């Protein structure tokens, strides 16, 4: 029997141990900048997990994740301006992002998803232009291009933000575990393998993809909001930036698309790259782009895919499925 490269495996124990260790880090005097790297890792991993859900398991190459991040962030910032507590802003960020996903799903899912990638690409740009021209609260010095401060963010200790993002990150990992082993995961696997068979086996293909899109948007919005608590400030051009798409795509592709542990491994490397390339400024994204294309061509299964192959001692024979729905 050959090895199925997409089999679900792995126990909960390593995850538990890692969580406890990571949670203890701020208490045992781990250096501040380490905590900052880890904070970024948590955010990236949560985002990459959500992208992997769509791209890896639903076949939806979503290019509008920055929209959900920005909406999460903006919802949080604006809620603090009308005097609501930050934790409510976080939750509202997730909810508004999900609602927004519901609205845009009407156009982007049309024509069995042919337009999905480019349709979603427009969304962040649309929002950027919108927020550049919008000033719901505050005086002349705020809103539009100038953006908003997250009020009260400076009073929150860095360690609290660290724990918050750790929770969101582990939450996203557990959520993926649960989804992939649930009926939803089984249905999605069936759709990915063969969309027409899935439909004639009674699966409502659109419905499952729609649920996934909205769910992914909610957690992405939540992670985005958490990120902007740490930043303390949000403005349209960086919030709705294609940079985000690059980060989470790169993390997922490096680690391995459609592999549960792929985003985790990829996110570590992306955080590392982030600081390695920081001094090169504008070249940084260019290099990331080159890496993305290169990995996609040379090792499309990513690091964990290669590791799985090597461990299995056999060459898994993966027949390419004929193209059915694209999206």
């Amino acid at each position: 029997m050959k090895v199925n490269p997409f089999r679900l495996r792995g126990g909960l124990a390593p995850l538990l141990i890692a969580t406890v260790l990571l949670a203890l880090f701020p208490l045992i005097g781990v250096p501040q900048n380490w905590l900052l790297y880890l904070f970024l890792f948590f955010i990236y991993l949560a985002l990459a997990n959500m992208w992997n859900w769509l791209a890896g398991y639903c076949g939806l190459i979503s290019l509008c994740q920055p929209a959900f991040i920005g909406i999460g962030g903006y919802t949080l910032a604006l809620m603090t301006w009308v005097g609501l507590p930050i934790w409510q802003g976080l939750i509202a960020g997730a909810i508004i992002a999900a609602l927004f996903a519901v609205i845009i799903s009407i156009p982007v899912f049309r024509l069995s998803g042919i337009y999905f990638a480019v349709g979603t690409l427009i969304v962040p740009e649309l929002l950027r232009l919108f927020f550049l021209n919008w000033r719901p609260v505050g005086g002349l010095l705020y809103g539009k291009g100038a953006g908003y401060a997250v009020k009260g963010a400076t009073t929150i200790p860095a360690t609290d933000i660290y724990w918050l993002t750790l929770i969101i990150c582990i939450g996203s990992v557990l959520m993926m575990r649960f989804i992939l082993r649930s009926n939803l995961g089984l249905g999605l696997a069936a759709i990915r393998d063969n969309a027409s068979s899935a439909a004639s086996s009674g699966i409502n293909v659109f419905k499952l993809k729609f649920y996934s899109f909205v769910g992914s948007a909610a957690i992405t919005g939540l992670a985005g909001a958490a990120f902007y608590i740490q930043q303390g400030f949000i403005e349209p051009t960086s919030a709705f930036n294609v940079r985000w798409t690059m980060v989470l795509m790169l993390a997922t592709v490096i680690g391995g698309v459609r592999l549960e542990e792929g985003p985790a491994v990829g996110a570590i490397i992306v955080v590392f790259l982030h600081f390695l390339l920081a001094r090169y400024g504008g070249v940084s994204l260019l290099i990331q782009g080159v890496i993305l294309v290169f990995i996609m061509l040379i090792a499309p299964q990513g690091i964990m895919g290669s590791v799985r192959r090597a461990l299995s001692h056999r060459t898994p024979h993966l027949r390419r499925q004929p193209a059915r729905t694209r999206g």
Partner: protein
Amino acid sequence: METPVLSVAGVTKHFGGLTAVKNFSFDVQPGEAIGLMGPNGAGKTTLVNIIYGIYKPDSGKIRFRGSNIGGLSPHRICHLGIARTYQIPQPFATLTALQNIIVAAIYGRGLSRPDAEKTAHEILEQLDLSPKKNTVTLDMDEVALKRLELARVLATRPSLLLIDEVAAGLTEEELPRILEILRNIRQAGVTILLIEHVMKVMTEAVDRIIVMDRGEKIAEGNPGDVMKDRKVIEAYLGEPE
């Protein structure tokens, strides 16, 4: 007479300048097994695709138990109790045989996970696939895949089953078993519409045969009579090869 399970009335479908199905009509009564045959390219698979909502007919009506099902999406049609197999098996390649069937039982029939698993085991047993239940389907051979195709659609518990070739590629020794399986399916009360090239299966498994050529019905009747029909013989002999 009872309401037909399936009633195809005056269905026509063009692809560009080509007429794939032309003013085609037939009824299938409850419990019946009907054979649909014809030379390659006669439009049989197109007709199944029309019934199953993959293609929209240019004209004509398709009724299931008296209600119009034209324009419904495949998953709705599945939920109504119509199932189909594909000529070339279309399994979920990265899932195991068992998971393939569980998916269909959960989504096609609305079973809970444990019930779906129980049903899946039963169906695998019925179709002699139990030894392969944990095999990933991309590693299975063509004959097993054809069985699995049948197993998967049975898991949705159809009342009408459209089978697009099940015996092609089987050896003479394997035929009696597939005939037995078809008989068992019928005994469970499932109405069958069978597309098949293997004559032995046709003559033994169905009550009535409809012959299709270039999108049109050229003959209909019990297997013995249809085989002697001059038009049918011409259609087959007229075909190159």
